[in-house]
C-alpha cells in the first residue's frame, strides 16, 4: 500500500484498531464442541475437512453476492444463474480438452481445472455486465422490483441454458488426479475437497488484500457505507458499482465450477438450489462483509456436517438454527458493516 502510506510526524505509539476476534473463535469452539459428540478423532478430522471444503465452496458462491448487496444495495435473486452458467462454461473447456481430464498427469489435470475456472469467470463476467445493464440498472433503488426483475432474469437465463445445452443433466468428469482421497492413518480427506479449501483460501486472502490494502478496496468499503460521499470526493461510483457487479458474477462463476466438479453433474437449476444457503451465510456474516461471509460459510457447513453425522434428522434445520442463534446474538450479523 505504498501509495497510501502517508504518515503524520506523530508520536511513535499510535493506537491501532481492535480486531473483533469473537466471531472467529466460533469456528474452533464449534469444532471442539462437536469432538466429544462425534467420538472418533479421525472421523472428526474427516468431517471437519469436508465441512471446510463445503464452506469454501459456499463462500466462493456467496462472496460476490455479499459485495453486490453491500455496495449497490441490490437484492440479486438472479445470482444463482451465474453459478449455473459458470458450471456449464466448463463444457467449453471439457469438450475440446476431454483428454486432459483422464490424463495421468497432475499438471494437465490442474491446468484443466484452472482453464475451466478462467473461462467460467470470463463467461460469467460478461453475462454479469449484460445482466447489470439490461436487468438491474433500471431498478436501482427499489428492492421489490429488484427481486421480481432479477428472478425473471434468472428464469430467462436458465431457459437459455436449456436451449444451449439441453434440459437433461450432463455428467462431467472430475480430473483424474483429483479423484480419490488422501488417507493418513484413519483420517480420510477427499483430494478435491482439499483443492477446494486451497482455492477458497486463496480467493479469501486475495479479496481481503484487495479490500484492505488497495485504493479500489478502500473505495468499495467507503461506497458500501456512503456512496454519495464517495462521489463528492470525485470518484465515479457508478463505474465502481458495475465493476463490482461484474466481479461478483465472475466469483459466482468460479464457485459454479467448483460446485460442478463436486457434484459431477450439471443442471440449469444447480445455482438456484444453493441460493438459500448463500443468502443464509451472507445474512449470518453481515450484509456486505467478505470476512463475515467467509466465517458464516464455514460455520454453516461445519454445523451441517457435524449435525448430519450426530443427529441426521436435525441436519435439515441446522442452517436455519445457526442463523437464528447468530442473529439473536448479533442482529446485524457477525461482522456488521456500517451502512448508509
Amino acid at each position: 500500500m505504498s501509495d497510501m502510506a502517508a504518515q503524520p510526524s506523530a508520536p511513535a505509539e499510535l493506537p491501532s484498531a481492535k480486531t473483533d476476534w469473537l466471531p472467529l473463535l466460533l469456528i474452533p469452539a464449534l469444532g471442539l464442541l462437536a469432538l466429544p459428540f462425534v467420538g472418533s478423532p479421525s472421523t472428526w478430522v474427516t468431517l471437519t475437512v469436508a465441512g471446510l471444503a463445503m464452506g469454501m465452496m459456499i463462500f466462493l458462491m456467496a462472496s460476490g453476492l455479499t459485495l453486490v448487496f453491500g455496495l449497490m444495495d441490490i437484492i440479486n435473486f438472479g445470482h444463482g444463474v451465474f453459478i449455473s452458467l459458470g458450471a456449464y462454461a466448463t463444457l467449453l473447456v471439457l469438450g475440446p480438452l476431454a483428454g486432459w481430464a483422464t490424463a495421468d498427469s497432475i499438471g494437465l489435470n490442474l491446468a484443466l481445472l484452472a482453464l475451466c475456472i478462467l473461462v467460467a469467470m470470463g463467461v460469467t463476467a460478461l453475462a454479469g455486465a449484460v445482466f447489470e445493464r439490461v436487468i438491474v440498472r433500471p431498478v436501482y433503488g427499489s428492492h421489490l422490483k429488484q427481486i421480481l426483475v432479477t428472478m425473471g432474469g434468472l428464469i430467462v437465463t436458465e431457459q437459455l441454458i436449456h436451449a444451449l445445452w439441453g434440459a437433461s443433466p450432463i455428467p462431467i468428469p472430475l480430473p483424474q488426479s483429483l479423484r480419490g482421497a488422501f488417507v493418513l492413518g484413519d483420517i480420510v480427506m477427499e483430494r478435491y475437497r482439499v483443492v477446494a479449501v486451497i482455492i477458497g483460501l486463496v480467493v479469501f486472502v486475495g479479496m481481503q488484500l484487495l479490500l484492505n490494502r488497495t485504493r479500489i478496496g478502500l473505495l468499495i468499503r467507503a461506497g458500501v457505507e456512503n456512496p454519495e460521499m464517495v462521489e463528492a470526493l470525485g470518484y465515479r461510483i457508478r463505474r465502481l458499482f458495475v465493476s463490482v457487479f461484474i466481479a461478483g458474477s465472475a466469483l459466482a462463476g468460479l464457485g459454479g465450477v467448483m460446485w460442478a466438479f463436486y457434484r459431477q453433474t450439471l443442471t440449469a437449476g444447480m445455482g438456484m438450489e444453493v441460493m438459500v444457503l448463500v443468502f443464509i451465510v451472507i445474512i449470518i456474516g453481515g450484509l456486505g462483509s467478505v470476512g463475515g461471509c467467509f466465517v458464516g460459510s464455514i460455520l454453516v457447513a461445519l454445523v451441517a456436517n457435524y449435525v448430519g453425522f450426530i443427529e441426521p434428522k436435525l441436519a435439515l434445520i441446522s442452517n436455519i438454527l445457526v442463523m437464528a442463534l447468530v442473529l439473536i446474538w448479533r442482529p446485524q450479523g457477525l461482522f456488521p458493516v456500517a451502512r448508509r
Partner: protein
Amino acid sequence: MTEPLLQLSGVHTHIGPYHILHGVDFTVPAGELTMLLGRNGAGKTTTLRTIMGLWQASSGNIRFDGSDITTRSTPDIARAGIAYVPEAMGIFTDLTVRENIVLAARSGPVDKNRLDWILGLFPALKRFWNLPAGNLSGGQKQMLAIARAIAEPRRLLLIDEPTKGLAPVMVRSMIEAFRALKSSGETILLVEQNFYAASALGDNVVVMDDGRIVHSGAMSDLVADKDMQQRLLGLSLDAHQ
C-alpha cells in the same frame, strides 16, 4: 470585491414535488470566506447540495471559475476543485482516520508537508490515526471531515454547519482552524447557524430565507447593524456571546 470564483444566477431547485430554491443569486469571491446564514429550512443545505450536483438545479445557472457546472455530475464538480463537507460529515466510519484522508487524495499519496499542516490544524486526529473513524467523538469527526476536504489543494470548500452540536471549546478550536485556512488563501463558502462563529470568520455574508436570498454584503455591515440582524436572522450577535 475580488473576481467571483463561484456565481449562482437564478437557481431553482425542486426535490420531488417541493420547490425549495426560488431563484438564488449570489457570488463567492476568490480567497475570501463567505458565510451563508439563515433559519432552519431556509434552503442553505439545498444550495450547497445543488452546487455539488447532488441535487440538480431545475433552472438557473451555476458558474465555477468561469465554467458552467449546472448540469455536471458530482464527481466532475469535485474534480473541478470543489470540496464538500456535508452537515452529517459523511465520514466513513468503517475506515480508519488515515484511510479517510488517503481516499480524499485522489491524485496519489498525501503530500507529507500538507499532512503535517493539516494535523497541525487538527492535532487530535494524530492520536486516532489508525483507529476506525467511527470511534471519534462528534467534534473529532467534524475535524476529520474538514481535514479530508483539504487533503489536497482545492479551489473552493463548501462546508455545512461545522459547529453544529459541538461543545463551546470545540467551536473555538474550529474557529481557529478556519482562521488558519482563511489565512492560507482558501476560498470557503460556510453555512453556519452560530452567528458568533459566523461573525468571527466571515468576510462576506449571504442570508437566505424561504429559499431566497434576502441579503448579501460585507459581514462587517451585518455585525454593525443589530436591527438588520434582528430582521434577517431573528436574533442579534449579543444573543450568541
